């Protein structure tokens, strides 16, 4: 077959040809199914812009994005941090940004990686299907930007900023962890408008002028019952703090609730991405590697281009060991790619160990079918728990370090050997459990008819504690949303014993 390009230069015909060739391989041969693609060519400056607002092209204005931009720019200008070759957005059409500085070979890599790898994952993984609305996200972002700009105009930048700051601080606690009904983002704008119209229609200034009658004293038993009833309706405990404030805060105005809702919608939109870093990046990395290799086999790219891609590929999947100065945790590309490549090997050339570990698919001869199934049905935790085999564990020479209270050093509990495989896979899977990463904080109680004080609870599992300073500052933001006093109790997970109470600082 004819070469797609030679040398480093590319133009839009080249990009088009590369895309067609990749599509032939990815869709025709590997059976990936993707959203339609939209490739956008941008400059490094624009890439920095995109970085600062979660990679989203349309975002409302907030100073924190400016802060991230300032920091990223300083790091980039000093050469301490490179820029990504691409950014891809979970939307339909799936938008991939590619940088103009990339060589033709890199563009091929990026297209294979983003437009087919990530795109396939976004479209098929059950978490994304359940939580995100790829068709609606752009319209929703445009609506959010417009809505917040309107609020700024009407109520002032500071008033809006106050709510946004507070909502951003609670964003990690602003997601539903368990599925409810699917967001239909297209309905959001209509819903907000209807709410506003209803408010205007039902506004009755006459009723407000009626003098308040002194209420007769309520017997305490009745009062208690009323409070029980009201609390029951709050459905405590509630772990989604933003949802709780949006629905129940006594002091917020409607537009403030809508802003909280916008922040909450975005948090929920990004929620699957945090849980699928390894599988998502693994999928994309595996795809680009396979697609490029195939293009080379078909004679569509030169040896030099393949080598350039392999060079980038091996940079991307570098995993320094934990004693290395460069070590900063697991590289999701490396771990993901290793697991996917191992699955392919097990499907095609299993040995006795593999048949023992993966009886369900060892030697089934259908690596792509098996992988498509993995990509569709697992998040990181499940991927590691079920598909991390002994070969990969040995490859990374994985060890399990136990950090126990009162000890000055880590104890090595398990290493990559016969006894350790299962336990290591299971421990690593625990690490990817989202409840492991973000502290679980829930609304435990509200003094409904008295001070309206809000009581949060954090359960300390395995002696984990909250950072007092940041907790106090975050509570201050929560107080902004709730309107009354808030406190956070840290309790022992085992026996519910109160350890510490934080108040808003």
């Amino acid at each position: 077959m004819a070469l797609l390009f030679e040398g480093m230069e590319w133009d839009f015909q080249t990009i088009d040809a590369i895309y067609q060739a990749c599509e032939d391989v990815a869709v025709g041969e590997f059976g990936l199914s993707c959203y339609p693609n939209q490739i956008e060519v941008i400059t490094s400056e624009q890439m920095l812009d995109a970085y600062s607002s979660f990679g989203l092209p349309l975002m409302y204005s907030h100073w924190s994005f400016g802060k991230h931009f300032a920091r990223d720019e300083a790091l980039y200008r000093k050469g301490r941090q490179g820029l990504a070759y691409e950014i891809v957005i979970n939307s339909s059409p799936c938008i991939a940004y590619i940088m103009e500085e990339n060589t033709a070979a890199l563009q091929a890599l990026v297209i294979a990686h983003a437009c087919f790898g990530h795109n396939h994952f976004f479209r098929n993984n059950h978490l994304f299907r359940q939580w995100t609305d790829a068709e609606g996200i752009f319209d929703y972002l445009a609506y959010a930007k417009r809505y917040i700009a309107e609020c700024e105009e009407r109520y002032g930048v500071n008033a809006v900023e106050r709510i946004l700051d507070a909502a951003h601080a609670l964003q990690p606690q602003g997601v539903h962890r368990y599925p409810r009904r699917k967001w239909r983002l297209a309905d959001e704008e209509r819903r907000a408008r209807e709410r506003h119209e209803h408010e205007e229609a039902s506004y009755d200034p006459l009723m407000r002028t009626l003098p308040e009658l002194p209420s007769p004293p309520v017997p305490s038993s009745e009062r208690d019952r009323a409070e029980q009833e009201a609390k029951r309706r709050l459905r405590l405990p509630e772990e989604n703090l933003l949802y709780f404030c949006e629905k129940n805060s006594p002091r917020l105005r409607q537009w403030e609730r809508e802003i909280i809702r916008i922040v909450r919608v975005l948090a929920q939109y990004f929620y699957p991405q945090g849980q699928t870093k390894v599988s998502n990046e693994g999928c994309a990395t595996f795809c680009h590697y396979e697609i490029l290799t195939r293009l080379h086999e078909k004679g569509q790219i030169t040896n030099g281009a393949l080598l350039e891609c392999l060079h980038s590929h091996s940079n991307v999947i570098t995993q320094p060991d934990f004693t290395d100065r460069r070590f900063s945790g697991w590289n999701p590309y490396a771990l993901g790619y290793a697991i996917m490549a191992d699955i392919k090997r097990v499907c095609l050339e299993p040995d006795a160990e593999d048949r023992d570990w993966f009886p369900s698919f060892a030697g089934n001869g259908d690596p792509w079918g098996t992988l498509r199934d993995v990509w569709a049905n697992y998040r990181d935790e499940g991927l590691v728990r079920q598909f991390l085999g002994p070969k990969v564990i040995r490859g990374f020479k994985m060890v399990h370090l136990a950090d126990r209270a009162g000890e000055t050093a880590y104890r090595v509990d398990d290493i990559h050997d016969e006894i350790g495989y299962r336990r290591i896979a299971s421990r690593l899977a625990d690490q990817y459990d989202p409840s492991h990463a973000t502290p679980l904080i829930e609304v435990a109680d509200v003094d409904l008819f008295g001070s309206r004080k809000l009581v949060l609870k954090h359960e300390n599992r395995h002696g984990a504690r909250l950072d007092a300073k940041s907790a106090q500052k975050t509570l201050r933001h929560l107080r902004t949303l709730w309107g009354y006093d808030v406190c956070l109790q840290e309790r022992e997970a085992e026996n519910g014993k109160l350890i510490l109470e934080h108040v808003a600082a």
Partner: protein
Amino acid sequence: MVIVDRRANPQGKSLPNRQRFLERAREQVRRAVRDTIARRGVADLDLDEEVKVQIDGTEEPAFRQTGEGEHDYVLPGTGTINRGDRVGKPPSGSGKGAGTGSGGGSGGGEDAFQFVLTREEFLHYFLDELELPRLLRTSLAQTNQSKPRRAGFSVHGQPSSLDVRRTMRNSMARRLALKRPNQATIETLKAEIEDAIALADDVRLGNARQALEEALRRSARIPYVDPVDVRYTRHERQPVPATEAVMFCLMDVSGSMTEHMKDLAKRFFMLLHLFLERKYERVHVVFIRHTETAAEVDEETFFRSRETGGTVVSSALDVMLKVQEERFPTDRFNIYVAQASDGDNISSDRATVDRLMRTRILPIVRYFAYVETQGGFGDYHPGHRGETALWGTYNAIAGSSTTPNLAMRRLADARDVFGVLAELFAKSAASPF
């Protein structure tokens, strides 16, 4: 698949966010700018300034866990570790487990971060603290400049300023009020006539013909656009305060001024020029150098060439007044004078300078800044000298309530240039009227 070229899109999409961030970190940025000013000279003015911002006010808190408690880490190992071995903990705060799972801890341990202020932003924050003294005296009465401003509508005017929308609105209102039949009505009547002819209904035909005739007559009587409908946009000339300034740079170039002193003076003039440029639309600069005699020169000659001779300050003041009278009338220009000198002046000149300043210069200038350059290498006045001749002269004039627009400072080192300018134009020190 679609390829979109976004490279030509407007750059700096995050600029508004950056400005909001700077606004938020305003106090820190200002402090940083002030620190920088203390540290460096004007020559570095072109460099971007790195600013370290403490997170105060720009932090983004979130609930996060400390490293306390029991943890289990599965990590990529070295292959040389065995079960039961002990591995030293990393120093606290570096967060060994940071890479596990999602980035819940990101942004956790930051306490200060650095970013670069552009030169524009740096100057903005620096000059923002300064204020033009006596700006309020630029009263409208003194100016003869004016700008055309929109001022409603008029029934007279040039055809080019015809306001079509307004005119057509009036026309439509009049047509509606006078019931001028529109085209559609006439069409309907014509159709009615044809129908009547087709049906051979004479009564209907007669009525319809009459109605059409009436409609056509009305239509002819009542014009579509009448002269009373016509409106023109009206412009009025409004007086505006003079937005031009002239800055006279006066410098003593006699032998006693060393290169170091000239360098100081140059930096001061440069900075003052930058400052004035931000306040006025146009700033003219006039360079006047003097020894015993004075002359207007170009910038290159002003700073480079060297003269020998005595020092007569009044000669420069004379030239300045002459240039001002010829080219910069006070009703059109805001006049600023910046004078740099080592303070020498021939004693017989004192009375002349005093008189010129009091009677002719200070009444017309917005501000007269005198900077006395001192010391540096090659200074042949070791130690503390007493008051110089010129300083003494000006000091006698300054400080009185009739001369609030004369300010004087001593300048010894390039580092102080920023500071001196800041002192001269400090906001709080600005005169109250």
